[in-house]
């Protein structure tokens, strides 16, 4: 095999893409040709350099995507995609949640908000800014209180849609956790019982009271989330 013949095969050789006979011929040539051998060694050095983990971009622990990154990128992937699927279905307009309940709608909304980074249309820790902001955007005035003193500062609000109804979504924070509170007027004869559940790693608390339906959702632990819910009642 001449040098010219070998040269055109060196990349395929390095990539294990040659058939047996070409491969044997190239190997034989490399024994006698320092120039071609150097090309192969350079390709291998390049390959090895690119194995450095800094060349493989990991999704950043992205608040934009979802802030429940726990350790590895794999966990992120699983979580992000769970959210991505929800969005996919949402946009395609034919997503059938496993059970078409308010709880699922709340979870979907929460994930959408976290993922898009669109948590608040009005960002403020001041209840006297947030509450008036809803005027004219909703057919009711949601109760808005700041609980910064108790460690649950108000962060903002937005209008969202749950099962076709325009609702108020209030955002609170607990350390680095985001808590979404969904509020809308209770239908007559609603239950006053409190439901607690956990879905995909999110704790959800629901009750009716003071004429409103309340849904509280967060990745915060259930104990603290109940503590927070008690403040709302």
């Amino acid at each position, binding site marked *: 095999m001449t040098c010219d013949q070998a040269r055109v095969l060196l990349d395929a050789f390095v990539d294990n893409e040659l058939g047996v006979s070409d491969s044997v011929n190239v190997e034989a040539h490399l024994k006698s040709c320092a120039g071609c051998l150097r*090309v192969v*060694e350079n390709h291998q050095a390049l390959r090895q350099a690119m194995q450095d983990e800094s060349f493989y971009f990991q999704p950043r622990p992205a608040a934009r995507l979802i802030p429940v990154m726990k350790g590895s990128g794999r966990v992120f992937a699983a979580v992000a995609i769970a959210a991505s699927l929800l969005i996919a279905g949402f946009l395609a307009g034919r997503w059938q949640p496993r059970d078409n309940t308010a709880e699922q709608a709340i979870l979907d909304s929460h994930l959408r908000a976290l993922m898009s980074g669109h948590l608040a249309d009005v960002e403020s820790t001041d209840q006297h800014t947030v509450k008036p902001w809803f005027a004219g955007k909703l057919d009711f005035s949601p109760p808005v209180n700041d609980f910064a003193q108790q460690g649950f500062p108000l962060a903002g609000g937005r209008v969202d849609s749950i099962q076709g109804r325009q609702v108020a979504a209030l955002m609170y924070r607990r350390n680095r956790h985001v808590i979404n509170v969904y509020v809308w007027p209770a239908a007559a004869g609603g239950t006053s019982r409190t439901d607690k559940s956990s879905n995909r790693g999110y704790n959800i608390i629901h009750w009716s009271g003071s004429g409103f339906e309340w849904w509280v959702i967060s990745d915060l632990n259930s104990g603290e989330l109940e503590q927070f819910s008690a403040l709302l009642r």
Partner: protein
Amino acid sequence: MQETNKRALFESLVVPHLAASYNLARWLTGSDHDAEDVVQEAYLRAYRFFEGFHGADGRSWILAIVRNACYTFVRQNRRKLVAIDDEVAELRDGRPTPEALRLADVDRMLLREAIQALPEEFREAIILRELEGLSYKEIGAITGVPIGTVMSRLARARERLERALAGRVSRGGAA
């Protein structure tokens, strides 16, 4: 396809390649933010058209979609992501034998910049080959070119990168 089945299949065939998707999108768009948007968009699209996927190779399928989403995005946004490739005169024939690269001396920052500066068809080839370990056949399927083209793109990409690393970026031909 029933919705729950579709989702389960999608989760087992496509979702595991999210990291690979992100990495490819990050290299092709050059930005975290854009890569996130593009991957998001690509997965939406993939899920929507998942009925049309009948193969077993979810990775090639989703990477092709991610790749196309990247280029659509890049074209729409008129980002100048791609280095001007006017040095076609880097002929493979008759070029001097390159200097030996010593791994220990490889400047990783320089290498990253050199990869980012590759024309996109070279860049995607080297990323899919060296970072994902894909075969020529798979790379050809994803990028829509024959295997021979994959090989020559890889060769060109490596040549440029190695020259850059050896401090001999060929502009002006100074060795």
